[in-house]
């Protein structure tokens, strides 16, 4: 533990250096986000944390970075200082800034509703990178990052047991998996798929993880695809570093994963996780992939729902239709950030005649409030992780206070999602992101009785589809 704590603090710099480093990353788009805010406050109702207090409105959170930017990067700010809202944070501001930074899931709802197209989530991301560099980062996220960056999870029996047990159960249920199978030089014309599964999939969406393997094995048995996955993952949920704004570390993890993908040489890199890994691989850090590969990769990054929807449109698969009242919660990273709105709906409509949308859906979907690492820094997660790694994870009393406030805000944030679920009348909420699954399930536990929705189940979409999947071999 001591060794890990030392490692966690190793990259720490003073606040001024952290600010200067962050400001070096301000490009034209970030400049627009920082300089062109009209202060209309139109973004406020979009944010799930706004209900916890007006100080959590996206514009208020982003303003903390704008103050720093004005002081550091503008002439007026340097000369006139606070008169023009230019100010660097003082040590006593840091706790407040931490609270603001971890009251943003980077859901992108404020981006879509901003009159001038400002993505406040990205601005808060810059704040997180400053805080992290200066050593202000939640212990649990810091640990998750170190565990992934240095591959330490491979030495933690508790974590590997979860992964191996899930694989074993999947194989018992749906047949064997060919691990680490390289498709290099293969002349087989069937699409070759690498299932890029994360440890978090097995840990937080165990049934969905097993069901995804079931789906892939069904497709393989019918001769539609060939697929493989890794026996020992190269990452926990790559790259965790983006959640706390350490892009250099994110790059390292990404490179490691990309090297593995290249060795396998698939046609498709398929993810079941609709959280941040999908847009990071496909859009945000695709440049790192190109650089690592030395050009445009031959493989495509797809989400499971896109892949299945394409097969369904080609008439290769179908679903036995049930009539369960089911709905789809758009994970913000898969939906707003990656524009995958229709494929999961097509699939669920084919699998249930009683599918219905949530009142707020697609671009206007209500974020559950669990992303951006927030769902991972709660007390119950800390205790559970302690049990998994076999030691008590202790945090300083001040951070315990922070944890309690995050927990309070998190529960307030999920409430409107639960109201939406209630209005929809759905009994099953399908989604594709571990943070969403955990958060909405937590919302059901907390508000279920009060709202009369305690019997609502929250699942990964694979769980619903696997047994209904029909593969046409003609």
């Amino acid at each position, binding site marked *: 533990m001591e060794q890990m704590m030392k490692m966690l603090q190793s990259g720490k710099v003073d606040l001024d250096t952290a600010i200067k480093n962050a400001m070096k990353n301000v490009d034209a788009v970030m400049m627009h986000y920082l300089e062109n805010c*009209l202060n209309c406050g*139109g973004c406020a109702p979009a944010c799930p944390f706004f209900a916890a207090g007006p100080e959590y409105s996206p514009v208020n959170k982003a303003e903390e970075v704008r103050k720093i930017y004005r002081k550091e990067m503008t002439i007026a700010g340097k000369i006139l200082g606070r008169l023009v809202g230019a100010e660097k944070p003082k040590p006593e501001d840091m706790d407040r800034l931490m609270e603001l930074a971890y009251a943003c899931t980077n859901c992108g709802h404020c981006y*879509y509703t*901003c009159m*001038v197209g400002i993505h406040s989530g990205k601005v808060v991301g810059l704040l997180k990178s400053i805080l992290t560099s200066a050593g202000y980062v939640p212990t649990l996220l810091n640990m998750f990052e170190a565990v992934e960056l240095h591959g330490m999870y491979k030495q933690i029996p508790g974590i590997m047991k979860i992964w191996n047990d899930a694989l074993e159960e999947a194989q018992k249920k749906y047949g064997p998996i060919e691990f680490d199978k390289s498709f290099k030089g293969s002349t087989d014309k069937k699409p070759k798929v690498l299932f890029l599964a994360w440890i978090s999939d097995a840990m937080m969406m165990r049934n969905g993880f097993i069901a995804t393997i079931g789906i892939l094995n069904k497709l393989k048995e019918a001769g539609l695809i060939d697929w493989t996955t890794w026996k020992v993952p190269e990452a926990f949920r790559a790259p965790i570093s983006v959640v706390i704004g350490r892009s250099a570390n994110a790059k390292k993890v990404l490179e490691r994963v990309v090297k593995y993908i290249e060795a396998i040489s698939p046609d498709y890199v398929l993810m079941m996780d609709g959280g941040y890994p999908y847009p990071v691989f496909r859009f945000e850090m695709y*440049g790192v992939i190109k650089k690592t590969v030395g050009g445009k990769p031959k493989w495509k990054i797809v989400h499971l729902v896109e892949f299945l929807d394409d097969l369904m449109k080609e008439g290769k698969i179908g679903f036995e239709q049930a009539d369960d009242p089911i709905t789809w919660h758009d994970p913000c990273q898969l939906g707003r950030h990656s524009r995958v709105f229709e494929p999961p709906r097509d699939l669920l409509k084919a699998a249930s005649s009683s599918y219905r949308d949530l009142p707020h859906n697609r671009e206007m979907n209500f974020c559950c409030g669990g992303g951006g690492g927030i769902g991972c820094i709660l007390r119950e997660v800390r205790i559970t992780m302690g049990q998994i790694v076999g030691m008590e994870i202790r945090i300083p009393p001040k951070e315990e206070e922070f944890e309690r406030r995050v927990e309070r805000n998190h529960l307030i944030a999920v409430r409107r999602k639960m109201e939406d679920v209630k209005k929809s009348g759905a009994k099953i909420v399908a989604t594709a992101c571990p943070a969403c699954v955990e958060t909405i399930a937590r919302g059901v536990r907390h508000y279920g009785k009060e709202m009369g929705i305690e019997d609502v189940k929250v699942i990964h979409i694979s769980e619903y589809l696997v047994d209904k999947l029909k593969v046409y071999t003609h």
Partner: protein
Amino acid sequence: MNVGGWASPSNLLGFALYYMLVPSVFVFAAGASYRIVRMLATARFPPAQRRPWSWIEAIKGIIWVFLRPIVFVGKTRTDDLIVGLILLHVVGVIPVLFLLAQHMSWWVYYFPPYKYLWIFAVPLSITSSVLTVTATVVPTTTMSHVFVDTIWGPLTAILNGDLLAIFVMVAIGYKCALRLVELITKHSHTPRRLGDFIAYALLFGIIFSGYVAARHRPSPDVATYMNVLGLHVLLAEILLMYIPFSKYWHFVFGYWYGKLHEWYDTDLKRGEAL
């Protein structure tokens, strides 16, 4: 006050028109260039695994990029839609600046092709559209039912300089009052920015001086009129210089860049999985 004649710096109109126009345009151009060049210098084009897109989807996308926030604010903050968007922008500053007959004549003077928009000109009031410094607002005939004839037909009841100016002043008043209440109650969902109040004060000054000048107040003599109109033009020039360094930049660049970038980012770069 009008010592030295029409073009003298001793009256505000002469000073504004003949001494301040060029410097204000220069400051605006320099400021605007500074901001745009800074952005160009830091522009990056990170690659992405894009989806194929069609023109139809792209056109639908750009319409929604502009409409989505308006629909959202209409549902969540109706007062801001009415005051901020409708009164301040749609039936406020935009038609006053670009369609008010007096302003159109100014635009045409500096940019002759603008004359093709004359047909859409909005009159100063529903009873007078006379374009002269000596015109009075009251109908010049003894008949009390003489109204101007514009392409806007009955809409002229709203689309006239008098009412549009009032809309803007009401909207600014509301916005300032809201900000002050938030400041006092310390319950604000937006940050406190001094620039907001400067921007509102400047706009209010321009609209109010224009409104007063058009009505030949506070006294109907030519010298007063020239000074009030001069103040109106001078404040507009100050605003022009202030634009690149203030929230008014959205009107020239920020809004259009922001929306086009959002369209590129969401619809062209990421596309939509259909």
